[in-house]
């Protein structure tokens, strides 16, 4: 069994071997193979979007994905929701010595597959190896560069108007509960699949359907409730959601009930929330439902003008509660 050692990160022969045999082999493209200290890009015709994210997930392989797939999808989705066409991505690895090369290869292959699927080039990378115990197996940072071809397009919370509709592309809480259920130390036996996926095609179709998309976000960490709070924070408006229209899979709901989590605060990795004008909402909904990743899309709420910047949830039985910004980490409860 071949493992990663400190010499793989030393910059010497072993490092080069790893770069050639693993990274160049899987990520190869004209820009990466310039093999320079920096990759030179051609002039881009439009506004440029940039985003960066680091991935530190445990376990690194989970039902529906792995840290590699997640690190590409997460960054590409962040570009896409800003209205950008994802073009390039850079990858940085921090690896704990002792990691099997076979595992690293699986992760890299999964990244390459996703990048290819999104038509995105991996244009630069870095590998560091640290002593055992300094990181947990592998951490990955990705930075994405995207092109906004439509010069008029600017998606932001200021665009939001009273009466706008809130659409979510499908079920909530799948990723977070998948990860929680697969943590060894909790010893839970559940079969929840992460929704980790690329959203760029779905989002492109949404933008082609309506010129009145106000803002889009992918509700990752903190879940839908936190994302909507972030959106509404600077808008002078509030959101009212209808609980009965929000889809949560039964297995996700059961796990949340057991551990005392609210699925509206649990992470998603393949969902998009769209705020769109009232008139275009049904059109956008139809487009979303035409894509496998949006087949369970529903209109879950609307924007009201009350100067309070709040997210309200109308419960099944007609009560109302406020969904606040989440504070601190989610912890399994006692009983």
């Amino acid at each position, binding site marked *: 069994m071949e493992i990663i050692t400190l010499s793989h990160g030393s910059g010497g022969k072993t490092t080069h071997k790893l770069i050639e045999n693993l990274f160049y082999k899987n990520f190869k493209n004209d820009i990466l193979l310039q093999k320079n200290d920096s990759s030179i890009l051609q002039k881009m015709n439009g506004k440029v979007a940039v985003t960066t994210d680091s991935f530190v997930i445990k376990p690194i392989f989970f039902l529906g994905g792995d840290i590699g797939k997640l690190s590409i999808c997460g960054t590409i989705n962040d570009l896409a929701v800003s209205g950008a066409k994802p073009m390039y991505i850079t990858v940085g690895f921090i690896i704990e010595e002792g990691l099997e090369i076979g595992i690293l290869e699986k992760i890299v292959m999964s990244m390459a597959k996703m990048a290819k699927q999104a038509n995105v080039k991996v244009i630069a990378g870095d590998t560091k190896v640290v002593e055992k115990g300094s990181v947990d197996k592998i951490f990955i940072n990705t930075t994405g560069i995207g092109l906004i071809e439509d010069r008029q397009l600017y998606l932001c919370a200021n665009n939001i108007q009273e009466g706008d509709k809130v659409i979510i592309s499908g079920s909530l809480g799948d990723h977070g509960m998948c990860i929680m259920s697969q943590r060894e*130390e*909790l*010893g*839970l036996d559940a079969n929840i699949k992460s929704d980790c996926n690329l959203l760029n095609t779905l989002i492109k179709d949404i933008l082609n359907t309506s010129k009145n998309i106000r803002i889009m976000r992918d509700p990752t960490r903190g879940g839908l409730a936190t994302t909507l709070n972030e959106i509404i924070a600077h808008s002078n408006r509030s959101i009212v959601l209808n609980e*009965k229209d929000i889809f949560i899979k*039964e297995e996700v*709901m*059961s796990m949340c*009930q*057991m*551990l*005392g989590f*609210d699925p509206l605060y649990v992470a998603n990795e393949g969902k998009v929330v769209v705020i769109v004008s009232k008139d275009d909402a049904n059109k956008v909904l139809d487009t979303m439902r035409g894509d496998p990743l949006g087949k369970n899309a529903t209109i879950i709420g609307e924007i009201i003008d009350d100067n309070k910047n709040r997210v309200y*949830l*109308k*419960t*099944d*039985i*007609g*009560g*109302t*509660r*406020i969904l*606040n910004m989440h*504070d*601190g980490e989610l*912890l*399994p*409860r*006692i*009983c």
Partner: protein
Amino acid sequence: MKYIKEFRDPKLAQKMLNDIWHNTKKDITIMEVCGTHTMSILKNGIRDLLPPNINLISGPGCPVCVTPQWYIDTAIALSERDNVIITTFGDMIKVPGKSSSLKLEMALGRDIRIVISPLDALEMAKQNPKKEVVFLGIGFETTAPIIALSIYKAKNENIKNFSILQSIKTMPNVMKEVVKDPQVNIDGFLCPGHVSAIIGVKPFEFLSEELNTPAVIAGFEYCDIIAAIYYLVDMANKEKYEVKNIYNRIVKYEGNEKATAMMNKVFVLSNSEWRGLGNIKDTGFKMKEAYKNYDVKSKIDIKIIPSPIPKDCLCGEILKGIKKPTQCKLFSKVCNPSNPIGACMISQEGTCGAYYKYKIR
């Protein structure tokens, strides 16, 4: 998991709510004593749907909230020892001690691990024979059977490096204490569904028989809770006092006999200290003589310095439903989830945390 959807029926809920509006003729105060009920009432927005003369208050039903501060300080002191692994239910780690919390100690590198069962902690003890694995034993009759089982198994399997920092509590006697308080006026109890699943109906019958207070044992979906309120209003109107079990899909009259047998094998009733309420007779469990080696206090000499509740923190009155969190000087301004002064603010099921989170005034 079955039995969720069946008890989430908006039409049925609406019908019962209409009846409640129609039947509520006088002011009625109902206390719930289970954190999961507190959360469900808030999550479903039930308060908004009730007539204004029904007052729902929360009692001492959140296991984290009722844990005294010295307990956290002791756990922190234990975590500072090199040969100790602290294992705990998740909610406990954020609870503030005198000058730190388990969460802060974790960040400083102490070996503190979150588990969802003490049996996992026992497993950890087997895997770490050179370390003392201490489980923070808190909760009510809900957690007591599994903690008892872990101790029983440890003794049977001769595992010597496993112990419990004990503060397990029992529910019925503290309810009696709350009702007897002249400052508290309760017209009905929403009895704790989980606790009842273990101990059954009988231990709550004193409420109606001795104290003329009606009670309903109910589940946690909104139809369960609204139905319980419906019956409590009805009994209060008719001055009919009984303990009604409408959670009979889970709660049997005699409870879970296997679980209570395990509890009784390992534990015996003892006095227990409740945050803000003080030391109350027969409201806790301690280990029987045969198992006392599994009490960490018998193994490790730890000096427990009782520390008073921080000044102005109204935990005790809030736990008894005498005051609302918004009446506490510290609420929201000084004490909030990012800077909790009391456990009630930090627990998911704590009254103060819930008032803060859902902006209840």
